[in-house]
């Protein structure tokens, strides 16, 4: 056996100068970025009134609160909470369905392969983007002004904010569809509507169904919080119990939310497998 060959480093250096002597900018880029990130972090901590004493005082307070949360106990309001939970699930289901129904036609208008004209697509896209830029809670506040306090405002809030998200996702799914089937329909003399109905939708619907189910899942989470501003559901109870410092009830409500979210996750992942098969679940 021969040992490792002696390598002439000088010749290698001459041949690959970039490997041995990287330019200073490349060597300094990563440390510079880390220093900058850290500097902003420190500035942020100072600007946002972080102080160790406040932090530890709060932490011990938090410890007390967690101790007072045990054991979780609904008191006598279990029926009220169950009804609120039902309300939350209803809000998620209705809001998502409404959003999907309205988003489908709009997403066709925002897809490049359906509407080739940039002038028409651009405003629709920006419109969808601005809807998405506004959080669900803000929409809930707006709808409360319109239809009054209660879960209906929550349904409309989720519907509007998901409309923006669906419009984007659906139009991306449509743009990703195979164009050959559309051409086939066109070649056999189909109209533009036929192209969409027989060429595009059969490809896109399973993807869309998967996304809608996923959103029902994530909207169960959103629906738990819109109650905090008065738009119905379990969040209303949760916010109230936190404000009156009934910690045992708070922990019970949080547990209820966790269990409900886990159950919905389970059901919807089963449904997604059933609808689009294992492969397509991204």
């Amino acid at each position: 056996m021969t040992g490792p060959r002696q390598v002439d480093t000088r010749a290698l250096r001459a041949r690959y100068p970039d490997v041995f002597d990287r330019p200073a900018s490349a060597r300094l880029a990563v440390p510079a970025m880390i220093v900058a990130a850290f500097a902003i972090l420190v500035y942020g901590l100072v600007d946002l009134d972080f102080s160790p004493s406040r932090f530890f005082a709060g932490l011990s307070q938090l410890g007390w609160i967690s101790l007072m949360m045990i054991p979780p106990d609904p008191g006598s309001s279990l029926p009220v909470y169950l009804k609120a939970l039902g309300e939350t699930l209803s809000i998620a289901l209705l809001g998502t369905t409404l959003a999907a129904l309205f988003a489908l036609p709009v997403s066709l208008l925002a897809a490049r392969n359906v509407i080739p004209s940039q002038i028409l697509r651009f405003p629709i896209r920006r419109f969808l983007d601005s809807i998405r830029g506004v959080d669900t809670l803000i929409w809930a506040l707006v709808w409360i002004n319109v239809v009054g306090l209660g879960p209906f405002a929550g349904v409309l809030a989720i519907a509007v904010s998901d409309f923006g998200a669906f419009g984007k996702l659906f139009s991306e799914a449509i743009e990703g569809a195979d164009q050959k089937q559309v051409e086939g329909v066109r070649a056999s003399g189909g109209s533009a509507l036929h192209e969409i109905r027989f060429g595009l939708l059969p490809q896109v619907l399973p993807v869309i169904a998967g996304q809608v189910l996923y959103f029902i899942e994530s909207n169960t989470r959103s629906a738990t919080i819109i109650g905090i501003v008065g738009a119905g559901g379990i969040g209303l109870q949760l916010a109230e119990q936190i404000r009156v410092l009934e910690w045992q009830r708070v922990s019970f409500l949080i547990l209820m939310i966790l269990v409900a979210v886990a159950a919905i996750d389970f059901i919807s992942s089963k449904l997604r497998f059933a609808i689009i098969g294992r492969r397509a679940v991204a």
Partner: protein
Amino acid sequence: MTVAVSILPEQQLAVLNAAYRQAVARKRLRLLLGLVIFAAALFLAAIGAEVNLRTFFAHFGNFISYFDRILTLDSGQRVWTDAGEWLWGWRKWLKMLGETLLISYVGTLIGATFAFALNFFAAENTSPSPWLRFVVRRLLEFARTVPGIVFALIFVIAFGLGPMAGVLAIAIHSTGALGKLFSEIVENADMKPVEGIRSTGASWLSCMRFAVVPQVTAGYASYGLLRFEINVREASVMGFVGAGGIGQELVVAIRKFYYSDVSAILLTIIITVFIIDITTGWLRGRLFGKEART
């Protein structure tokens, strides 16, 4: 030119046709059944959510006119005719927006640090022991499932009103969300470098440092930037429960019916979110090439 299409004999065709129709009918029946169940669920949900179409249609005009009102100044003119009057509080709002961005930045960074520290214990291929993995996974799940604003409500009581509660709430929620995503990246990492390093007698820590981390940093940074984008939106509503940021101004304007302020603050939020989306998208494309952009 003619093409001969062979046509099957009559009886054979009839059998095939019948089978085809039966298959289609079965499929249709299943679809119909699914639709009926779905409609029933919707109906139940409509009762549960107290949907009242009459109030909806009676008040729908309000929704349109609400946007009309928030786009009108006190003087009765459209907001864009007098930008100075419309954006009168821009100094204050920009300061609050800056605070919102800082909240989401600090929250994301703290969350990402914790997620980084925890995710090797949560990933199936690198976790040193199964029970540790179980505990860490449940912890991350808890942090992810409880909404950020619920943490904020509790932290406002523990830490007092102000941005600190918002930062901590966002940090915890980000830890949960990023911890899961990070551990998924680690699970997809190539294990051969780990074996190579372990064969030299290295400890678990060195295995992670020299074999796993170099493979996964790009993915981590990409998810971290994505999370920052989401957290900016989340931080914009933290003020609703008193946890700092522009949300405080917005909720006051909405509740007290300062209409033109509502539209001005919403405009600044939307523009900020746009800018952040575009910048982080550009950064991700720049740092990691096209495939990491999704």
